[in-house]
């Protein structure tokens, strides 16, 4: 009996937690399916209205922004290019750098190690203004390269890959060396396949990280053609239900990725924590 009661309490607490997480988003979603006129007179709504298709298609395909130059669809495209670029580039460069650090005898190894890891001290937010100046000197303002490159050197990813490589038994390399495998082949044929889970986890993490960037695109894009979803939220003009619809749509990609790939993601993070 006590067992039954305590399990009921457990479920109740969890349900309250779920409500805190779900209700705010639900209210915005429900409100996004009403007309703006209705919202303006009646406030936020808890029940669905019947303007769903109308509102969402208008947001996706109608041009908005300061100069009416961009649709939400284009912003999603930009966000995907940016996030994929950041994820791909940071996985490749980190994988390679970690390999160089762990599997080679290098002069100044400690120096290079610190050169990479000290960057953890300087998040983008701390060097925003000088970064902008550097990018404008390089003519990279309003380009995808400008959006992607400064965020794609991830010391955290390098750190994770380095820890992972260190945990691989030395015998693997000894055996490979006996067979006369070159450092290239060893990297591509042995290490990359072995790190598949890690690669996937880092890719997911960096993709969501890249997609969720707010400040950097805000500063790097003066042309609306390069607006991304998350930064567009604040700057986008439109009726209130359009804005609700856009908020809901902006959440979908990262949330879907985390929900469906949570196992992989959590596994990858904890494998090396």
């Amino acid at each position: 009996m006590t067992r039954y009661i305590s399990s009921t309490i457990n479920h109740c607490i969890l349900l309250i937690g779920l409500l805190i997480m779900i209700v705010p988003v639900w209210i915005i979603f429900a409100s996004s399916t009403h007309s703006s006129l209705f919202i303006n007179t009646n406030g936020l709504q808890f029940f669905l209205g019947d303007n769903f298709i109308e509102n969402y298609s208008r947001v996706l395909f109608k041009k908005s922004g300061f100069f009416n130059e961009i649709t939400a669809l284009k912003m999603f495209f930009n966000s995907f290019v940016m996030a994929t670029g950041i994820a791909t580039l940071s996985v490749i460069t980190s994988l390679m750098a970690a390999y160089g650090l762990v599997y080679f005898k290098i002069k100044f190894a400690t120096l290079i190690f610190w050169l990479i890891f000290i960057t953890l001290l300087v998040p983008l937010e701390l060097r925003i203004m000088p970064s902008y100046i550097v990018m404008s000197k390089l003519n990279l303002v309003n380009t995808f390269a400008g959006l992607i490159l400064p965020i794609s050197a991830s010391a955290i990813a390098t750190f994770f890959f380095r820890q992972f490589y260190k945990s691989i038994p030395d015998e693997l390399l000894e055996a490979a060396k006996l067979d006369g495998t070159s450092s290239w082949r060893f990297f591509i044929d042995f290490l990359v396949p072995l790190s598949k889970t890690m690669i996937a986890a880092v890719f997911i993490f960096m993709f969501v990280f890249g997609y969720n960037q707010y400040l950097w695109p805000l500063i790097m894009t003066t042309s609306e053609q390069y607006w991304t979803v998350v930064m567009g939220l604040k700057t986008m003009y439109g009726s209130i239900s359009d804005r609700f619809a856009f908020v809901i749509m902006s959440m979908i990609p990262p949330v879907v990725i985390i929900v469906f790939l949570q196992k992989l993601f959590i596994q990858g993070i904890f494998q090396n924590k």
Partner: protein
Amino acid sequence: MKKVQFKSYYSQYFFLAPQLLILLIFLYWPIIQTFKDAFTMQDAFGFGSQFAGFDNFLFVFSDPSYFTAFKFTIIYSFVITLITGSIGLLLAVQANKVLHGKNVYKTLLIWPYAIAPAVVGVMANYFFSERYGLLHHLFNNLWGFNWYEDVFDAYIYVIIAGSWKQISANFIFFLAGLQAIQKTVIEASIIDCKSNIRRFWTITFPLLMPTTFFLIIINITYAFFDTFGIIDTTTIGAPGSETKTLVYKAYIDGFKGLDLGSAGAQSIMMMIIVLFITIFQFRYIEGKIHYN
């Protein structure tokens, strides 16, 4: 490092080059620029600049709004850590106990983790708007809520907006920490100690200490940096500069106020704070590694 390694004249540099190149151009160059800005004074018209020693730092220290931002950042990170940590732990303990629906709860509790802080801020904006806001109405009926004039009300606004999604992160890590505790330990403790609550505080919670410590660091870093998007989409620092975090203030002074010297000095002081946080973090991670 490995006992067996490759010896090569150039291959290693090929592997290191891409990352180092990106770091040098897109990190070190701006960082050096930050240091240069911090130690130079630009004249009011932007025509010239001269070496200023620590003048910019002295200027920042004599600026009362810097201390306001400092105070707010400390309060903000403390409260967010406390709220999200305790709610995350509470939910993780429950989710670890239940026999049915564990995965459903888990999935439905972790998804806000993926939402960008700026998106959360825009959402919070609607709940706290005078026109539509449910929370605004609720608090207004309780005590006359007015976040753009009352500091305490503005704190409530940004704390609720800042805590919401971070509960998920705390939940994920606490749940993983709980699942890593061996069943035998728990079974043995059940024999020794009947009270659930006492057992939790004397056995389970001490075993969760590493996770707790790790999460404190994560939450502080989140409150320092990731909340930028939240502040910029909710209060924008209002009332006055009462809800500006240090990072947000540095951004406003540098990018909006075009005072590069002050912004540079503020950035360098933040770097020193982050340095301390990172040293703790590294100690923790290095201490936790297990080689299979």
